[in-house]
């Protein structure tokens, strides 16, 4: 993804202007009822101008109105086009990666070279280093590093291997080293890249439920104003008759159309689709792809988040923070033994033990070859690791570190015993949410290493923000309930699910949903797929399996579990932007009435100075009736252009309770919406006066 933050680049604007003109096609226009009405008005006004022109009495007023009405339509089209244009630019760069590739298809053990477009689901292909992976699939054999920058923008290669949760590969990405055999999982034209292109281009964009509801509201308001305007000439004629002003004409059609266009919600009507498209675009900039706009909206509604402990709440690895010796053992000798046992342990935990011993007692990592020593690696069966050291006197030191149970067995096998006090220490550590690692030397238990889960910095504040926004967080962990509770308390999550099996996640989601909550979760493994499908917002990590990516309704290309929170924020921002601009649009009407009503009614019941009683409503003191109407129409058109950046970027988002957000947005867009047009129309009126 390119990360251009500028909204208007030159090439984008030129393309958008062209697209805006093309969108004048009535078939396209009718999809937006509000703007369609404006277009009809513009057409009628233009027609009237030309018939008058050929009749020899061209009115420059009608001409100007017609021009500005067309501009209103074009500005609305332009806003949509520029939003789409940004997506198209991204699609363009994606498409380059999809250039014709060839595939080495494996049939009956023989490799044949075919075009990638001929691949079907279930085909097996071989990819060597340097090859582009021809289509989406699962690695069935081998391990390779893959450059996925084409879709993620991330240049560091990732590992893809058969089996497990990192087996999915994406068409268009490049194998950098090694060789893998891939089973194709998508039909041509329906690959991840294809779908991504379609999504960012907006080709498959459907109106979201909330957008549909809003369109209905806007159409309804349009009909109401249409009624108010259509009936106005009858009341006007009655008033003309009543004021004995028979020489004056009834309201002209261009004036009525101007009034109508000013009143119907053109601002939000014109910007509505731009808001929707740019919502998706913003998500894409965060490297998250939503399969539908609906999913983004749902993200705004989510009020329960299921978060995996590891990676989201805690740093991936536990760290040694303390050595607790057994009775009669010095802390230093425990540290020394612990370090010895970990010298060859390349796990992050092992490394953290070496570092801690060095920090506390300045025990250096020794050259292991000096002693005749054998390293015992960790196995799932023994559940411990360590080192056997033959000392100069020929005795064998057997140092082990491992889980309580395994070490207990180890010392008892060596005719030792497990001290009671250690059991207490171990239980105590578990209660704190820590993982105890017991160290033994032959038959003697030396002590315990305190391994701690490190909660990510700032995550507690993040959860507090979420809570204030009304979002509950649930931590999912395989730890036992004791450990889980301690970490949950430290991180400040609202609830936790300990010793969680994949089916527990699914059950928990169902339970929350039955209570009326909307649940969001992020996952990667195949066994996460059911839960991802069940969640209202399921984000699959790009590193995850194909099954997970199919099940979720979003894919996070960065595979960053914290992303879920950002997705929720984007969803909320999208809805807020719609609400704010709708409020602004409706609030604008107040000022427009005060501009237009006195203008059109100035001749009614006029006194000897030619001033009618409704001039009292001309509180903006606009210079003339024509100028008042024109100023309102111009303001109405320009405000669309001026608000495009807001529609694209979204209203400013703050993690605050609903009430504070509402109050703030109301002051800015509600009150602001009432005041702004008074000022804007007055300025335009002054300007018009100046140039005429």
């Amino acid at each position, binding site marked *: 993804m390119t990360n251009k933050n500028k909204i208007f680049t030159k090439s984008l604007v030129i393309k958008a202007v062209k697209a805006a003109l093309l969108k004048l096609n009535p078939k396209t226009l009718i999809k937006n009822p509000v703007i369609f009405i404006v277009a009809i008005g513009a057409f009628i006004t233009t027609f009237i101008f030309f018939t008058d022109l050929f009749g020899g009495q061209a009115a420059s007023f009608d001409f100007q109105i017609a021009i500005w009405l067309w501009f209103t339509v074009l500005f609305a089209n332009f806003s949509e086009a520029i939003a789409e244009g940004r997506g198209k630019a991204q699609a363009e760069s994606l498409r380059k990666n999809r250039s014709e590739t060839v595939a080495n298809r494996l049939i009956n053990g023989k490799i044949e070279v075919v075009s990638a477009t001929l691949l079907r689901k279930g085909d097996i292909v071989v990819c060597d280093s340097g090859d582009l992976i021809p289509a989406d699939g699962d690695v069935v054999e081998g391990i390779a590093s893959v450059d996925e920058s084409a879709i993620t923008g991330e240049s560091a290669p990732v590992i893809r291997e058969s089996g497990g949760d990192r087996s999915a590969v994406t068409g268009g990405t490049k194998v950098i080293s090694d060789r893998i055999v891939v089973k194709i999982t998508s039909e041509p034209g329906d690959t991840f890249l294809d779908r991504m292109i379609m999504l960012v281009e907006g080709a498959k964009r459907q109106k979201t439920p909330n957008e549909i509801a*809003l369109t209905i509201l806007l159409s309804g*308001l349009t009909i109401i104003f249409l009624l108010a305007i259509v009936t106005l000439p*009858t009341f006007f*004629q009655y008033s003309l008759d009543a004021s004995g002003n028979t020489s004056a004409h009834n309201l002209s059609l261009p004036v009525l159309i101007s009034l109508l266009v000013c009143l119907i919600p053109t601002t939000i009507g014109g910007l509505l689709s731009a808001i929707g498209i740019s919502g998706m675009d913003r998500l894409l900039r965060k490297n998250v792809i939503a399969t539908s706009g609906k999913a983004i909206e749902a993200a*705004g509604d989510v009020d329960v988040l299921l978060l995996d402990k590891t990676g989201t709440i805690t740093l991936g690895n536990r760290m040694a923070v303390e050595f607790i010796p057994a009775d009669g053992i010095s802390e230093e000798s425990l540290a020394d033994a612990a370090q010895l046992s970990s010298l060859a342990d390349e796990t992050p935990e092992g490394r953290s033990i070496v570092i801690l011993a060095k920090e506390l007692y300045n025990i250096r990592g020794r050259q292991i070859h000096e002693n005749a020593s054998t390293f015992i690696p960790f196995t799932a069966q023994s559940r411990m690791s360590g080192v056997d050291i033959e000392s100069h006197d020929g005795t064998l030191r057997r140092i082990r570190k491992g889980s309580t149970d395994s070490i207990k067995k180890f010392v008892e096998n060596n005719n030792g015993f497990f001290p009671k006090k250690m059991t207490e220490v171990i239980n105590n550590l578990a209660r704190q949410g820590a993982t105890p690692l017991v160290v033994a030397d032959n038959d003697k238990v030396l002590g315990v290493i305190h391994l701690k889960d490190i909660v990510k910095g700032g995550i507690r504040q993040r959860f507090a923000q979420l809570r204030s926004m009304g979002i509950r967080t649930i931590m999912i962990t395989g730890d036992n309930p004791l450990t889980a509770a301690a970490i949950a308390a430290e991180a400040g999550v609202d609830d936790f699910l300990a010793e969680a099996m994949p089916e527990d996640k699914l059950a928990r989601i169902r339970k929350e949903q039955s209570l009326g909550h909307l649940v969001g979760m992020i996952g990667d493994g195949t066994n996460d797929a059911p839960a991802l499908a069940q969640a209202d917002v399921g984000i699959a990590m790009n590193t995850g399996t194909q099954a997970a990516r199919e099940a979720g309704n979003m894919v996070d290309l960065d595979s960053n579990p914290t992303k879920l929170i950002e997705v929720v924020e984007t969803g909320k*921002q999208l809805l807020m932007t719609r609400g704010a601009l709708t409020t602004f649009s409706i609030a604008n009407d107040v000022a427009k009435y005060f501009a237009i009503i006195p203008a059109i009614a100035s001749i009614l*019941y006029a006194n000897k100075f030619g001033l009618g009683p409704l001039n009292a409503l001309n509180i903006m003191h606009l210079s003339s009736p024509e100028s008042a109407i024109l100023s309102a129409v111009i303001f109405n058109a320009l405000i669309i252009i001026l608000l495009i950046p807001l529609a694209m970027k979204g209203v400013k988002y703050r993690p605050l309770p609903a009430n504070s957000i509402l109050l703030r947005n109301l002051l800015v867009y509600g009150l602001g919406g009432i005041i702004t047009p008074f000022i804007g129309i007055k300025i335009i009126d002054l300007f018009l006066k100046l140039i005429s």
Partner: protein
Amino acid sequence: MEISEIIQILLYIALLVMLTPVLGRFMTKVYMGKGHFMKPVLGWLEKFTYRLCSVDVQQEMDWKKYVSGLLIFNLFGFVIVFFLQLFQNQLPLNPQHLPNPSWHLSLNTAVSFMTNTNWQSYSGETTLSYLVQMLGLTVQNFVSAGTGMAVLLAVIRGLTAKTTKMLGNFWVDLTRSVLYILLPLSIIFSIVLVGQGVVQNFSHYTGSVTLEGATQVIPGGPAASQIAIKQLGTNGGGFFGTNSAHPFENPTPVSNFLEMLAILLIPAALTFTYGRFAGSNKQGWTLFIVMLILFTAGLMISLKSEFSMNPVFKTASNMEGKETRLGIANSVLWSVATTDASNGSVNAMEDSMTPLTGLIGMFNLMLGEIIFGGVGSGLYGMVVFIILTVFIAGLMVGRTPEYLGKRIEAFEVQMAILAVLAPCLIILVFSAIAVSTQQGLSGLSNSGPHGLSQILYAFSSGAGNNGSAFAGLSTNTVFYNLMLALAMLVGRFGVIIPVMAIAGNMSMKKITPPSSGTFRTDNWLFGILLIAVILIVGGLTFFPALALGPITEHFLMIGGISY
């Protein structure tokens, strides 16, 4: 304005605030089917009614069944009132031998009373027999009010139910409304009114000769019983043509005060019942306060206007068209209350009020009478505005808008728009037809902007199911009788059906538990928003028409010209 008048207005508001929880709590018990003190007294009658009509109390209805029951019942009521009038001369209890009214007047009156409008193209004492008044009109006064309350109840259930299609039983809701709420209150109230001197008899009209030697006919009839329910049930159709300006309908300051209080009593108390059903008194009080603020604002503008120096008459108190017995403050208070509620009873000539008072009254009608409003209908009309407010503003907190934990989606918005649109369409289009046709214009008694106000007011009153008239417009013509009948029908059922559809759809939705991310609908911020949406949506729709009518008239009056 005198100090006694100010005290009286404050007393009025204070009593309204105090009585709201009392009656509201009682109505909650009635509607929830719980025990209450009227049950031992009238419980047998309730059971008897169900047995007589073979109503199965346990049987719940979905929204379509509920509405069809309601429509059939209303059609039945219409037919009875229509034919009672057409044959009143052949039927008993017609001591004056009043002739049968015309078919279009009968039709208009029948629609008018069925829809709780009580628009009077007729003049009570000179057109309708005692039988029609009692068996036709008074009965409809009860059941049309009961219908409104039943609809509200179904709507409340729809908004608060947990995933069910069922909204209750129309027959049970109707019976309980009439039997436990309207009937007892009316009996007590009519006895009080009789005590104040309101007539209640079956006598012939009495002829007498005045001191000046002129002959005068003094009418009689069972007035008190009808007046009690016409006030309480926001009906408004007077027993006499001049409604509560008539000394037999409204003889004393006490009767005047009580009749005014009765206009808003039940609609106000229903807000409390609403809160109870929603499980939070604050929800109800928020709506009450919104209504009270709009009521008070209208009242203040009207009072200011009536007591201001009038450049035409060179006086600072406009007594034209008001009862000298009652005075300005009482007439204005009544006028605002009756147009806020869908009552329509009057104790002074709306036509003679200053343009701004007329504007306030008209605007109240155009909003659909939701400031307290008709019994039931006011609050379910308010629900429409609540849904619009929640939808527009609710988005601004970044969630799909919810009301009482239920999501507002396309269907609800569509129906809410329909419910707003139907009366708007009638008011604007029918007024437009009236000002452009000879039939429409011939009914006018005033020219200029005031004439436009008369027509706008008439159709607003019809579509809003109010029934008050700007007087001065002669409406007993085929043109107005039919147009207004249609206006009343659309104004009533064009709102009831979409609102019930909303209830039916909302009832099936899940309830999201509230959190700090929820858009709250029970605090001052929501109150302000609701007021803003009501004023802006309502105001923007009618501003052009109002500008050419009462607003022009106001500025002309300031300039010393009156119509």
